[in-house]
């Protein structure tokens, strides 16, 4: 029997998006996870454990092991022991192992997506539609390279794996970053020790299960959880190569500590990308691109479009549309399918964002935030715009790594390029204009490793990604992403 359906008195419709929570039943969490070494979960020699939480509720999800120097050494030994057999496999067989991982990720996609949102705070629609499919795609793409390496670098000599790779990944795309690191390393014949971020270990540990299901030979992939000290131990360990994604500050530390060691190194660091909108841009799509550029994943994105450069004639119209659009952003439970902006990953990150935003206000920029109710528990920050920003403000120079957009204006192409390049960073940039020749002209002059034209935050395993200047060096994705994991007979490394 139908209940009385509440009808509006007049005017405002009772239109609400379903709190459409994705069920967490699909995820079965253990109380405690050991380190994944030599194909098995083992207790840490350190004897230490730490809790990992959900940043949207602050509740503890599980305990994970904290690897110390001894644990890291054991993991590296396991990788070293497994290396000859792995490198000695027929490449086509190696390929098939990696294809298996890709397929299993697809099969268990929903489980991974839910766990990623629980542990990291990002909206389920992002983990479901972006993170997990891309992670599977990376394994697929690189699987196909394993037995085709001779075509990748013509004339360079026989490609060989570098050996054992130590890989340290951040908390903003936990599983995807694991895929970006492991897929090319494995395809190229290396073995690996992976250190997930301190706050987001769980999807990496679930990946370990997939690796067991794929029957990857033990020791080919090892996973050591922990915090900064675990990472430092891995950097200093007997590995042949270090791959790091994280802050520029830590990247420099790693560069200094590997100096003179002969270890191969790639760094994917921070950014302060300019998203440049011209008067002739397709404005409504540009609004979507700007919004996506800074609020996707709560702005926890190294290549986020955190500086909006607007051509002055279209500033008022664009700002009006951005403010209206901000009102429609839904901030809340990451597991709600209608949520656009999830939780900030940790209290520490929230404090950094708050500090920088305060500095913005203090330095005289004008702040705008939509009204939205934030949950009591958990770490949250409202999507924020700053206008009246100049290049010298901290909010225009420092990476905030949060949902905060700094808006500046420009008049000419040259001015836009100059302002966009006026930063020690150089990871990405966005250009919005209908004029093709301008896109190419600017793409040529922007000092950034990734340039998006009339789009933003597009990623693909076939597309090389990486930075100029203090955003790091080396590329991930594409043919170029193989290079850091290979060495060549008789040619330059």
């Amino acid at each position, binding site marked *: 029997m139908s209940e009385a359906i509440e009808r509006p008195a007049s005017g405002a419709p009772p239109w609400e998006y379903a709190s459409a929570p994705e069920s967490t039943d699909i995820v079965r969490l253990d109380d405690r996870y050991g380190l994944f070494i030599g194909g098995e979960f083992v207790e840490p020699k350190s004897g230490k454990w730490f809790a990992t939480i959900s940043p949207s509720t602050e509740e503890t999800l599980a305990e994970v092991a904290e690897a110390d120097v001894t644990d890291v050494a054991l993991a590296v030994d396991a990788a070293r022991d497994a290396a000859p057999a792995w490198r000695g496999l027929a490449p*086509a067989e190696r390929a098939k192992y990696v294809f298996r991982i890709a397929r299993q990720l697809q099969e268990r996609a929903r489980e991974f997506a839910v766990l990623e949102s629980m542990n990291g705070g990002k909206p389920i629609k992002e983990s479901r539609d972006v993170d997990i499919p891309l992670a599977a795609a990376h394994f697929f793409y690189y699987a196909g390279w394993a037995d085709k390496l001779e075509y990748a670098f013509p004339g360079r000599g026989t490609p060989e794996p570098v050996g054992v790779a130590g890989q340290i990944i951040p908390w903003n795309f936990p599983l995807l970053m694991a895929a970006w690191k492991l897929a090319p390393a494995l395809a190229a014949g290396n073995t690996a020790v992976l250190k997930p971020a301190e706050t987001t270990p769980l999807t990496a540990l679930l990946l370990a299960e997939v690796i067991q299901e794929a029957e990857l030979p033990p020791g080919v992939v090892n996973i050591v959880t922990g915090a900064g000290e675990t990472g430092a131990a891995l950097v200093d360990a007997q590995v042949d190569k270090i791959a790091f994604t994280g802050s520029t500050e830590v990247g420099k530390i790693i560069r200094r500590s590997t100096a003179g060691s002969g270890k191969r190194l790639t760094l994917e660091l921070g950014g302060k990308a300019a998203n440049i909108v011209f008067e002739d841009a397709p404005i409504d799509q540009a609004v979507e691109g700007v919004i996506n550029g800074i609020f996707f994943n709560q702005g926890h994105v190294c290549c986020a479009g955190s500086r909006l450069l607007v051509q002055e004639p279209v500033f008022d119209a664009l700002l009006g549309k951005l403010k209206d659009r901000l009102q429609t952003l839904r901030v809340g439970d990451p597991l709600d399918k209608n949520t656009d902006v999830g939780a900030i990953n940790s209290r520490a990150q929230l404090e950094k964002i708050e500090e920088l935003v305060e500095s913005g206000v203090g330095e005289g920029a004008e702040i705008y935030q939509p009204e939205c109710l934030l949950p009591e528990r958990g770490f949250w920050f409202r999507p924020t715009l700053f206008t009246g920003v100049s290049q010298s403000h901290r909010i225009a120079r420092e990476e905030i790594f949060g949902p905060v957009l700094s808006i500046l204006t420009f008049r000419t192409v040259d001015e836009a390029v100059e302002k966009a390049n006026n930063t020690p960073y150089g990871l990405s940039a966005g250009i919005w204009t209908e004029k093709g020749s301008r896109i190419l*002209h600017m793409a040529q002059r922007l000092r950034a490793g990734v340039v998006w034209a009339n789009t933003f935050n597009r990623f693909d395993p*076939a597309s090389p990604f990486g930075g100029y200047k203090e955003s790091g060096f080396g590329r991930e994705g594409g043919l170029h992403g193989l290079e850091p994991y290979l060495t060549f007979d008789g040619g330059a490394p």
Partner: protein
Amino acid sequence: MTDRLDVRRTAKLYIGGAFPRSESGRSYEVTTHEGGPLAQVSLASRKDLREAVVAARGAFPAWSGATAYLRGQILYRVAEMMEGRRAQFESELADAGAADPARGVSATIDRWVWYAGWADKLAQVVGATNPVAGPYFNFTLPEPTGVVGVVAPGDQALLGLVSRVAPAIVGGNTTVVVASERSPLPAVSLAEVLATSDVPGGVVNILTGRTAELVPWLASHMDVNGLDVSGVPDELLTDTERAAAENVKRVHRAPDADPFDDAAQSPYEITAFTEFKTVWHPMGA
């Protein structure tokens, strides 16, 4: 207990994703390599071939327009399906006289996986951006040529067949295949695998029948863009190439290598049926 009578398969053509009999109503007897009776197989006519070309052309826009990633995924699934049907393929290879059917099937599946992995990489290896002497962005892209006719090798009825078909379709072409006349059953089983692997109907069409009867019609068809003559008997080759000249088909023959050898697989088997498009665009404020 009485012996159980088995249900025999009817071997039909594979056109547009469906399994019709030949419109001519004809079939022919296929024997084992020792001469014993094996099966009745549809004997395709020129009209069947015409319909197959129509189907291939119809399927071309969507197949070539799919992302390379998707084509790679679909081809990988074909390998999964083949692996599940190993036993059937091995038995057919044994009937055809293969010395080591298991090795043949394994090599076939691995070859298919190898080509599947090229879908989203080919452009990076054979494409280019070209540094022209002027303010222009200039890039070259590989594109599929269109409908490719494949005359499959008479022997190596599975590995040889797959070594021709996989490179033809991974880059986005659609195909009309004339199967081995004396050992068509692996091709029929391959058709059944394709039909269950998310490969859109019309991407691969397989005609069983008399090579000498079908090849002239395929070679002279004006809506076929490429022709793989690997299975054309020597005595027919000249006429075939001459007929293919009418609409300037791209003609290609398999490399002279042992099909089990790595030398028999190459991205240049893909580019044999690939066009290269070069685009210019000014760069200026």
